């Protein structure tokens, strides 16, 4: 897993990343590379550090040490802010604005052209709901508004934190198709999920557990190297091969104090 690829082919490269939330370390010396123009899945159980990793990539997470390079610039640089689309786990939209008003506001903040609102409405199949208040929509529709916001301004990198949670199967398939369409047009995507059966939809997989990347390759390679037929049991096999955890790092995701309240931290 050495970082040898040309900078032009790499969307994200992270080395020796240490992040602490509250008093407990969440990421301890994490390193990874995300290639450009692919759909990379970040899979792992709840609480393993996926959100913290994604927050570090988009530059809203305080980090202890390590380097995060995104699209050739240090993570969190001002120059990156209009090149990355970020979808938080909870749909971060204004409930007291209509779908169109939400998108128009974020579009103006990004300085994207006026036609962009209609483009992302169509891409996420939200045109029929455009004039409804976001707060009146279903959970799945609200998270699509959040996703539509991230598509504004045609970012080069999309960081999507569990974008398919709570969506019906038909819509989920449609979204994955859209992710691959975007990747073919050159966009890099990092998509997190705790649902293992989504693993096979990715071009590449990062299996994460307790703040560390256990596996980084294609879904086919995962199945081949473990001799399993589905992603879930392959993931279990990868964990088993890691051997028992060191005392400092529990195997099971722990409930950390303040963890559930992470969005309230200032």
């Amino acid at each position, binding site marked *: 897993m050495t970082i040898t690829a040309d900078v032009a082919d790499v969307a994200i490269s992270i080395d020796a990343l240490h992040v602490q*939330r509250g008093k407990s370390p969440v990421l301890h010396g994490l390193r990874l590379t995300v290639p450009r123009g692919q759909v990379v899945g970040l899979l792992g159980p709840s609480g393993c550090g996926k959100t913290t990793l994604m927050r570090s990539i988009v530059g809203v997470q305080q*980090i202890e040490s390590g380097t995060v390079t995104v699209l050739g610039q240090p993570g969190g640089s001002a120059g990156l802010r209009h090149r990355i689309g970020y979808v938080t786990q909870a749909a*971060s939209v204004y409930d007291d*604005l209509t779908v169109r008003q939400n998108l128009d506001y974020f579009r103006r903040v990004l300085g994207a052209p006026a036609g962009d609102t209609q483009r992302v409405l169509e891409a996420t199949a939200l045109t029929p709901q455009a004039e409804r208040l976001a707060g009146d929509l279903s959970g799945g529709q609200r998270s699509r508004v959040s996703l539509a916001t991230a598509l504004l301004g045609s970012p080069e990198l999309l960081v999507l934190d569990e974008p398919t949670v709570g969506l019906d199967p038909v819509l989920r398939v449609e979204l994955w198709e859209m992710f691959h369409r975007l990747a073919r047009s050159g966009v890099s995507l990092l998509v997190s999920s705790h649902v293992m059966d989504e693993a096979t939809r990715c071009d590449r997989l990062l299996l994460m557990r307790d703040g560390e990347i256990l596996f980084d390759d294609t879904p086919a390679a995962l199945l081949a190297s473990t001799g399993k037929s589905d992603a879930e049991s392959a993931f279990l096999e990868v964990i088993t091969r890691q051997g028992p955890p060191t005392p400092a790092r529990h195997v099971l995701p722990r409930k950390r104090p303040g963890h559930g309240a992470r969005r309230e*931290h*200032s």
Partner: protein
Amino acid sequence: MNARRLFATTGRVLTQIRHDPRTIALLLLVPTLLIGLVAWIFSDTTVFDTIGPAMIALFPFIVMFLVTSIATLRERRTGTLERLLAMPLGRGDFLAGYTLAFGGLAVVQASIAVAFAVWVCGLEISGPIGLLLLVAVMDAVLGTTLGLLASAFARTEFQVVQFMPVIVFPQILLGGIFLPRDQLPDVLHAISDWLPLSHAIDALNDVAAGVADYGPVWVDVAIIAAWAIGAVVLGSLTLRRRTP
């Protein structure tokens, strides 16, 4: 700071409020109704002429403080602030956008309160009404900016509500409503000289009394403005893009 993003934020905040008619009604009418209540309580006395100007300072200030601090806290808790800070929105654009939106509401709110106090409650204003209105608006804007500052420190609704007794109540107690400021113990008098609400109340009293020289009133207005600007600057310095 970027004008396009600042005005986009102002427009967005006002659109949000437009979808909530009850908040508009509360925001615009509550200070006026409270001034009316005070006038009614003292209707058989001459007290209202003495404390009426202070009431014009007090109620809009408190209401604007509360509304603004909760609005921005809600933004933090729903994750929209995190999204905005991952976008090219300056922290100054965000806070100034809010100040402008709520400042606009403050103009309407203060106008209604002043008109009601003068023409319905019969508050005697010897000085120019326009200057009285200016001070009242500045005072409501001050409430807005202190609310923005408080919400930069608060992480929960519980905390932000408790910032009110911390930031607002001492200013009321020392502002000269309960006891004229020059009769306060020396230390408290000195402290009250530094508090912006004291200057708002002084200025409104001067205009109501129709003093010969309005120079000190302009000094009061400048002090209130300095506090308001200082609160926004300090707020934007404490607002962090990266959070733990």
